[in-house]
C-alpha cells in the first residue's frame, strides 16, 4: 500500500530548458492581442502570383549599372570590415575596461542604418557615409568578440615562455597564435554580415544592390527584383570562392581604386550640424547659458519621451518578443529539415540550400517583400525576422548536430533524432537564440523605415522632418534599450559558456 502511494506521488518536474521554452511561447501568446498583426492587403494572392511570376522569369539585364552596384556593395563591405578591424582590434585588448566596453556596447546597439542616416546629414550620399556606417558598429563588435575569443584561450603557453621576453612577443606567440583560426573565421563571418548591411544601406539611397532592389520591388518590376535577389544570394553563398583570405589585399586595393569619388566634405556643414542642427531649438537659439529656456527644454524632452520614445520602445519589444517565439518554431523546423539524422544526404542538400537562402536575404528585404504581400502591420516584420534568424540558428545548429555520431542502438531515425540529437543540441540552440535576440531587437528598430511603428519609425520620420535633435535622442533611447535588454538577458539566463561567437 505504501509503495503504491509512493508511485502515485512521483512527480516529474519540468526541465530548465522546457521552462525557458514554455515561457518564450507563453509571453508571445500574452502580448499577441496587443500587437498589430492584421492582414491589411485585400488581395495578397494577386501580388503573390506576380512575385512568383517574377521569380520564375528573373531578368538579369533589366538593371542599369548592375555591375557598378555589385562593386559598390562589395567595396563598402570590404572597406567597412577592414576599417572596423583596424579600430576594433586594439580596442579588444583594452576591452576589460568598463568605459571601453560600455562605449562599445552603445555604439554596437545603434544599427548601421541609423549611423548611415546620421552621416547622410553630414557627408551626403558620399561613399564615406556607407563605409563609416559599417565601420563603427563593426569595430565595436570586433572589439567585444575578439576580446572574448582571446580570453577563452589557454594560459599555459605563457607559463613556459621566458618571463623576460617583452609583452608583445609573449602575447603574439602565446595568445594570438592560439586563436588565430577563430579570429579569421569570425572575420569571414562578419564579412558576410557586412555584405548584407551594405546591401541594406541601399534602402536609404546608397548606390548598392539594395537601392536597385528597392526600386524594382516598389515599381512592381518583380523579374528585375528577383534577378537582383538571386545575384545577391549567389554573392553571399560563394564568398569563400571569390574572396579567399589571400586575395583580401588585392580586393582592398581594387576597392580603393573603384570607389566612386568621395566629394569634399563641407566642413561648415559639419560644424553647423554639430553646433546647430542636432541641438533642440531651446538650446540652439540661446547664445548663452543664461538664455536657455529650461522649461521649454523640459517640455520638449518629456513630450518626445512620452509620445515617441515610449510607444516606440513598447512596439519594438513587442515585435522582438513575437519574433523570438516564431524564430524558435522556424529554427526547430529548419533544423529538422536539413539534419542528416532524419533524411538521406541528397535531401539534406535541399534543406541546406533553403537555409542558405533564408539566411542570405537580409531580414529587411524579406520584410519588404512580405509588406507588399500582407500590407503594413507587424506581421511582415515578425515573419521576416523569424525566417532570417531561424535559418541562421538552424544553419549553425545543423553544423553541430551533423557532427554528432548516432547512438549504437537499434532505434528508428525519428527516435534517434528526438532522444539523442535534440537533447544534445538543444541548450546550444537556445543559447544561440538568446544571443540572436540582441540582434533581433537591433533589427526590429530598423523596420520602422518600412512604416512599422517601432522606434526606428520615429527616428526616420524625425530625420525626414529635419528634427535632428529628436532623432538623436531617440537613437540614444534605442541604444540604451538594446544595452538594457542585453544585460537583462545575460543576468536572467544561465547560458552554456561555449564560444558562440560565430553568431
Amino acid at each position: 500500500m505504501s509503495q503504491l502511494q509512493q508511485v502515485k506521488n512521483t512527480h516529474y518536474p519540468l526541465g530548465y530548458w522546457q521552462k525557458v521554452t514554455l515561457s518564450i511561447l507563453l509571453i508571445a501568446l500574452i502580448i499577441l492581442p496587443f500587437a498589430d498583426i492584421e492582414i491589411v492587403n485585400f488581395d495578397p494572392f494577386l501580388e503573390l502570383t506576380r512575385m512568383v511570376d517574377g521569380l520564375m522569369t528573373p531578368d538579369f539585364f533589366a538593371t542599369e549599372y548592375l555591375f557598378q552596384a555589385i562593386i559598390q556593395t562589395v567595396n563598402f563591405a570590404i572597406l567597412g570590415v577592414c576599417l572596423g578591424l583596424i579600430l576594433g582590434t586594439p580596442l579588444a585588448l583594452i576591452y576589460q575596461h568598463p568605459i571601453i566596453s560600455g562605449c562599445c556596447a552603445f555604439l554596437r546597439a545603434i544599427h548601421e542604418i541609423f549611423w548611415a542616416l546620421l552621416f547622410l546629414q553630414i557627408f551626403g550620399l558620399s561613399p564615406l557615409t556607407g563605409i563609416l556606417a559599417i565601420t563603427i558598429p563593426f569595430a565595436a563588435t570586433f572589439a567585444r568578440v575578439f576580446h572574448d575569443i582571446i580570453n577563452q584561450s589557454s594560459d599555459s603557453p605563457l607559463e613556459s615562455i621566458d618571463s623576460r621576453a617583452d609583452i608583445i612577443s609573449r602575447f603574439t606567440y602565446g595568445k594570438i597564435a592560439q586563436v588565430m583560426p577563430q579570429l579569421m573565421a569570425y572575420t569571414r563571418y562578419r564579412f558576410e554580415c557586412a555584405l548584407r548591411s551594405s546591401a541594406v544601406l541601399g534602402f536609404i539611397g546608397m548606390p548598392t544592390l539594395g537601392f536597385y532592389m528597392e526600386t524594382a520591388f516598389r515599381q512592381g518590376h518583380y523579374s528585375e527584383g528577383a534577378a537582383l535577389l538571386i545575384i545577391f544570394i549567389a554573392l553571399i553563398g560563394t564568398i569563400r570562392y571569390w574572396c579567399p583570405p589571400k586575395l583580401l589585399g588585392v580586393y582592398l586595393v581594387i576597392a580603393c581604386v573603384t570607389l566612386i569619388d568621395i566629394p569634399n566634405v563641407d566642413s561648415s556643414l559639419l560644424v553647423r550640424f554639430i553646433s546647430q542642427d542636432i541641438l533642440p531649438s531651446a538650446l540652439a537659439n540661446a547664445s548663452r547659458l543664461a538664455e536657455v529656456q529650461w522649461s521649454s527644454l523640459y517640455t520638449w524632452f518629456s513630450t518626445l519621451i512620452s509620445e515617441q520614445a515610449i510607444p516606440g520602445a513598447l512596439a519594438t519589444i513587442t515585435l522582438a518578443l513575437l519574433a523570438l517565439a516564431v524564430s524558435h518554431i522556424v529554427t526547430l523546423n529548419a533544423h529538422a529539415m536539413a539534419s542528416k539524422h532524419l533524411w538521406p544526404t541528397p535531401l539534406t542538400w535541399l534543406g541546406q540550400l533553403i537555409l542558405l537562402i533564408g539566411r542570405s536575404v537580409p531580414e529587411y528585404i524579406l520584410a519588404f517583400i512580405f509588406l507588399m504581400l500582407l500590407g503594413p502591420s507587424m506581421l511582415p516584420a515578425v515573419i521576416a525576422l523569424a525566417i532570417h534568424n531561424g535559418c541562421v540558428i538552424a544553419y549553425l545548429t545543423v553544423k553541430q548536430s551533423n557532427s554528432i555520431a548516432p547512438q549504437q542502438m537499434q532505434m528508428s531515425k525519428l527516435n534517434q533524432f528526438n532522444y539523442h540529437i535534440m537533447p544534445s543540441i538543444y541548450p546550444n540552440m537556445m543559447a544561440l537564440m538568446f544571443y540572436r535576440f540582441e540582434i533581433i531587437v537591433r533589427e526590429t528598430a530598423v523596420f520602422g523605415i518600412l512604416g512599422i511603428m517601432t522606434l526606428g519609425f520615429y527616428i526616420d520620420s524625425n530625420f525626414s522632418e529635419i528634427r535632428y535633435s529628436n532623432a538623436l535622442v531617440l537613437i540614444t533611447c534605442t541604444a540604451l534599450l538594446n544595452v538594457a535588454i542585453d544585460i537583462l538577458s545575460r543576468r536572467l539566463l544561465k547560458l552554456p559558456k561555449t564560444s558562440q561567437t560565430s553568431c
Partner: protein
Amino acid sequence: MITIDNLNLHYDKTAGYNTDIKETSTQVIFDLSLTINEGEKVAIIGPSGAGKSSLLHHLYQELQGNAALCSQRQGLVDNLSIYHNIFMGALARHHWLFNLVNLIRPFKKELSNVSSLCQQLELDQPLAKKVDKLSGGQRQRVALARALYQQQNIFIGDEPFSALDPLMASRLLETVLKRHKTVIMVMHDRELAMSAFDRVIALDKGHLVLDSQQHSVDHQQITALYQTSAVA
C-alpha cells in the same frame, strides 16, 4: 642558490574547474625546508599526489627569469608549427619586431639552430608541421626542445620524458644534464632518477621524507614509500 624554509603550499580548488564554494583549499606541501645549490642535479620522486608538481612550480616562481620550465601541461600552441613552438624559447633574446617578422617568415639562422636541436632530440619531423598533428611523445619532445632553446643555466622539468620509451628517455636526460649547470626534475622513472642524478628527494603527502644528501638511500626504502602510499 635557492633555499626554502618551512614552506606551506595550498592548492585552491575554487581556482580550478571545481566551482563549488563550499570546497576550501587543500594543503599540498607541509613545512618543507630545502636548499639547492648551484651545480646540483636534483631528482624529485614520490607517488602521485605527493605535491611534486606544486613544489616544482614554486621553485620555478622563486627562480623567475633564471630557469627554463618544461611543465607537464606542455603549453604548446596547437596552431603553430614545430619550429615556432620551439622558437618561443628564444623570444626573450630578440626584439619584438624580430619575433613578429619571424612569425610570418622564419629566419634562416634560427631555422638551422632549431633544426639541429631537433636532431639531438631525435625529432625527425618537418619543422613546418603543426604540433596538433604530432603524437604524444613527439609533442613532449617539442616542449623539451623549447625549454632547452631558452638556453638557461637552470632547467626545471616536470616528468619531461613520461611519454617516451626508457632508452630514449635516458639518452635525452643525458642531453639535458649536459646542457645545464643546475637541473631540478620530477622523475617518473625511479631507477633512472637514482642512477643519473647526484641527489634524489622523495616527497610523500606533502612531506619531505627522503633526501639522499643527508641519508644514504637504498632501493627498499623507496619501494616501501610507493607501497605504503598505494595502500593508503
